[in-house]
Every structure is written in C-alpha cells, then in structure tokens.
C-alpha cells in the first residue's frame, strides 16, 4: 500500500470536470484507490465521493493506493493533479 499527499493547485479545485477526470483515471487501474481529506475518506472510483470531498484550490488530499498496479496508478494520479487536470490554470 502506498500513500502520498498532494496539494490541489488548479484554480477551480476538484470541481465537476476535474472530478470526472480523476475518477476516469482511477478507474483504469485494478488497485483500490482511496482519497482522504479532513478525515473524510472516499473511493476515488466514485465521482460522487470525489465531488463531495469539496477540495478547493490549496487544499491537501492524500491518495492511498493498494493493489498490483499501485505504482503506476499513483504516478498517474499525481501527474493529473500536478498537471492542473489539463486545465492550464
């Protein structure tokens, strides 16, 4: 199991579109993926959970990945967040 904290840096935060992308990426891997923020833990493969995290710009979330493909899964998730979900700002 690997854990990693990351800061949301895109302007709009984990809004609907970013949540969609995150859920889509998470769904590509067989590992169990959880996101934790302020003691709230949700399944990254459930868009409803991700949206309800309400992670705005500047908030920190922790990915918890467990499974066969946990390494590439974590890399893909971090990449997505750090790439501002491809939104450019």
């Amino acid at each position, binding site marked *: 199991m690997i854990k990693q904290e990351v800061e949301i840096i895109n302007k709009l*935060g984990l809004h*609907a579109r970013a949540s*969609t992308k995150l859920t*889509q990426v998470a769904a590509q891997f067989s590992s169990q993926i959880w996101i934790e923020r302020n003691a709230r833990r949700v399944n990254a493969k*459930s*868009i*409803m*959970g991700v*949206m309800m995290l*309400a992670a705005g710009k500047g908030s920190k979330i922790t990915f918890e990945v467990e499974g066969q493909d946990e390494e590439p899964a974590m890399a893909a998730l971090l990449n997505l967040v750090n790439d501002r979900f491809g939104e450019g700002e």
Partner: protein
Amino acid sequence: MHGVGVSAGIAIGRAHLVSHALLEVAHYDVRPELLDFEVNRFEQAVTTVREELSSIRQSLPNNAPAEMGAFVDTHLMILSDGSLSQMPKSIIREESCNAEWALKQQMDTLVEQFEAIEDVYLRERKFDVVQVVERVIKALLGHPNQAALAEQESGMILVAHDLSPADAIQFKQHQFAAFITDVGGATSHTAILARSLNIPSIVALSHARNLIQDGEMIIVDGQQGVVIVGPDKDTLAEYKLRQEQWEIDQQKLKRIKQTAAVTLDGAAIELHANIEIPQDIVQTKAAGATGIGLYRTEFLFMNRRDWPDEDEQFEAYRKVAHAMKGLPVTIRTLDIGADKQVNPDSERTVTNPALGLRAIRLCLAEPQMFHAHLRAILRASNYGKVKILIPMLCNLAELKQALQAIERAKQSLKDDNIGFDAKVPVGGMIEIPAAALGAELFARHLDFLSIGTNDLIQYTLAIDRTDGEVAHLYNPLHPAVLQLVEMTIRAANKAKKEISVCGEMAGDVRLTRMLLGFGLRQFSMHPAHILAVKRQVLNTELSKIESLVRKILASNEPEKTELLLSKLNA
C-alpha cells in the same frame, strides 16, 4: 408573467412543455414476489439513460464547446456511480417500494450531502445529480427523453423547469424560437445557450411550467423579461410588429459598430462598458465600446468565506487590462455591503445596509484586504490603461485616506521591485448627495469623477432600491436628481477633469440627449445598450438641444418634464 430576461429579442410561438418528472414520483408498496421485477425495471432504466447519454455524447457537433462534452461525461459517471446505480436497488428490497421512490429517496440523501459542502460551485453540482436522476425517472415512467422532440416544429417555445447541459445540447439541434424556465440566472445553462443561439430567453419565472399549457400561444419578450400567455388579437398584432421592428433595428445597429460616436456638430463622445467578470469583454468588444467605464470587482469576492488573494485578483484584472489593448479600463475598488454581501451567512445584520459599512468605508476598515486589493489593481496597470475608481466617497477625509492607501500600495510594490503604472489615474464615484454637492472639491483632488446614478437616486430620494413597496417612487427624472447630476457634470467640466455617468441612466436612450445637454461626454453602460445610445448620439445636434435641456432642468412638474423629454427626443 415577469422573469429575468437573459437573452434579448421577441419570439411568438406555441409552448412546448418539458415535463418535470421528479414532481410526478409516486410511492407505492411492491409485493415481495415482484421485487425482482422492480429491481430489473430499475436496471433497465439506468441502461436506457446510459444509452441516451452516450448517444448524445456521440452526436455532439464538432463545433460544440468542450465543456458540453465534459458535462455529459460527468453525467454518465454520476449515473454509473454505485450510489445512484446500486443503492436504490437495496432500498427497493429493504422497503419493498417502487423503483422511482427508491431512487428519489437516494437522490434526496445525496443532495443533502452536497448541500453541506461549503464551496458554492461544488454545492451546485447537486443539480447535476438531480438532472441525472430525472432522466432515470423519466425512463422508469416511460417518458423517453427523445420522444418529446419527435414532432419538431420550428417556432416552438421551450418551457421547462430547468435545462440541464445535456438537454441544452439536444435542444440545440432543434429550432426553438425561445427558451423560458422556472429557475436560473444570467449565467445558467439556459441563458448561455440562448445567447449563443441568439434567441430570446427568460429565466426565473417561478411557475411558468405550471401556468402554461402545452401548445398554448405565448409571447416572449427577452428584453423586458415578460411572457404573455394566450395573447388576444391586438396584443399579438402589436408584438408581431415589435418583433419585426426589433429585428430590423438589430441589423441596422450592427452597421454602426465601427462608426465613431460623434454628434452631428462634431463632439466626440466616449461610450464605455460596465462589466463584472473578465468574460464580459467578449460582449464589450462586440458592442464596439471604446473602453471599460466600470469594472465591478466585487464578483470575485462574493459567495465565499475568505477574501481572494492578491494573485487571484491580479489575474482577473490583468486579463481585462490586457484584453482591452490599451483602451481605458476603470477598475472600481470593492463595493460590497448593502445589497451585495460577501459572506452569504454573515452573522452581522444591520437594519439599513445601504447606509452602513460598505464600499470604501468597508475597505478602510479592512486595511490588509484593501492593501492586497490595491496592489492587485496596480500590478494590472502594467498590462493596459488602468484607472482606479473609488466608490461611495462621502467626505474629504475618506478620500485622503484612500489616496494614502494607494500611495502605500505603490510604495510596497516599488520595494518589491514589481512594475506598475506610476501615473495611474484615480477617480471617485459620486453617488452620495453630499459628494454631488461637493463635486467641485472632489474634482480638485481627483483625476476624474464618475456618477453612479442608481445609488445617487436611492440616497437622494430615500428609496430603497430593493424594496418592491416603494419601487414606484424611484424616479431618475426627479428634479433634485437631475440637478445633482447636472451640478456634478458642470463642476468636473469646469475643473477640466473627466466625468462619466455609469449608472442605469447612461444606458437609457431616452436620457442620452438630456445628459449630452448637461455637458456629459462619457457614458458607461451595460454593453447591450451601447449601440442604441451610439445611434442617438449620431442623431443629436448639441446646439439644438440646449434650450430644451435647460427647461427640463427647471421643470418641477413630472408631467411637464415627461413632455419636454419627448420633445427633446423627437
């Protein structure tokens, strides 16, 4: 019926009602032996909706905005989410209830969770959940979503409770003459879609869907925000005429977009735009505005619990300054308090917010926030022709404090080696009668003045703008208001300082000539009014209106003022 007109124009046609399935959800018990059947029915409905959404996704035209596709993706994912596609099945079994009711209950639970979210944007996503659920319920009830569109007839007026982005995409491919909805605002999907299609639209009609019958003849006047249901022959004829005139007029107006605003006797007039968010630039440019006369900064500060930081503000201001390519951009410092509250659940309640801690008063009371605000504006001045406008000035001491705050912000930027326009002009809003009476003094200490007529009228006549009971007393033509406006313009002109009017009066073509007669040469208004005002300017000869304008100023009787005004505009 009255609503909020979000896209101008007039449409006449038959109503096409989009059903609001959620209202029709019934609750009934299902016998134990039929529960499997009920679960199966639910699964099929989900599958049907998934197919519907996928087919919408695929049929998106190439030129559709990227957001449209993303919205449909989000809806597809919400649909597939266990909390919507699985949970209701357990509810059906546990409560032996029908599928619709199970889904409705699950939706209510989800919506409740969304409502607990602090972030406004994310909280609004509950509507996405509702829209997806609505589709499933329609499928369950056997109202397929497309069937409604089978018999298409151009000229139909769409009447809905609300439009989801997916609905909007579907409807885009059909020729509706207008959209009207029960809920929504100027930035709702309905409004954006209507403007992109250039058809009239009215939102926030509250009960349109219940009061209008399918197939009924209705008239939609997007400019006035009025819907007329079942018009008689005369009304219909009148609106047909108005519709034709409006269309001819729009074509004519477009032709003067590039024309310089000059009166018949050669006086050049500046016509600027009032904007609220950087995206308003598009409309501003389309209207051929020669600058931004009022950039309201408060929208960045509203509906949130914290202040936006300096960088976030700078980014918004820079965008506008840059986009206007050297044309003036007048940024008004924060004007909140009164009818525009920052924090929606602020504890502080005052009996008279319009007379309370607002605008410059609030800024001077929050020096740190004001400092960051001013730094952000000054930094943006490096990217275009920025001017700073201070709202709600009431006395000289306030003005001096504000000027000192600007100096401090400048000094701190110098210390940090950050560039800005050292000569950025600073002006003041004249909207308190005391300031209008002291306009001469303010003009001496400032680079320009701008009259905010909405507040000036409210304060002069003691009419609360937000109180419907006294709304009829709100009168821009009240002699006292006219005198204060004229007096301010005269004082600024005498001091050789720029003066503009940026309230509603500036965008009212009935008043254009009168204001020109008062000596006004700069108007700032909603971009939608610019071309009409420009046409009035082009048709005005200053030397010919002078004596009538003087008579209006001297008139003490409303009827006489109205008469003189009609004469002036003839």
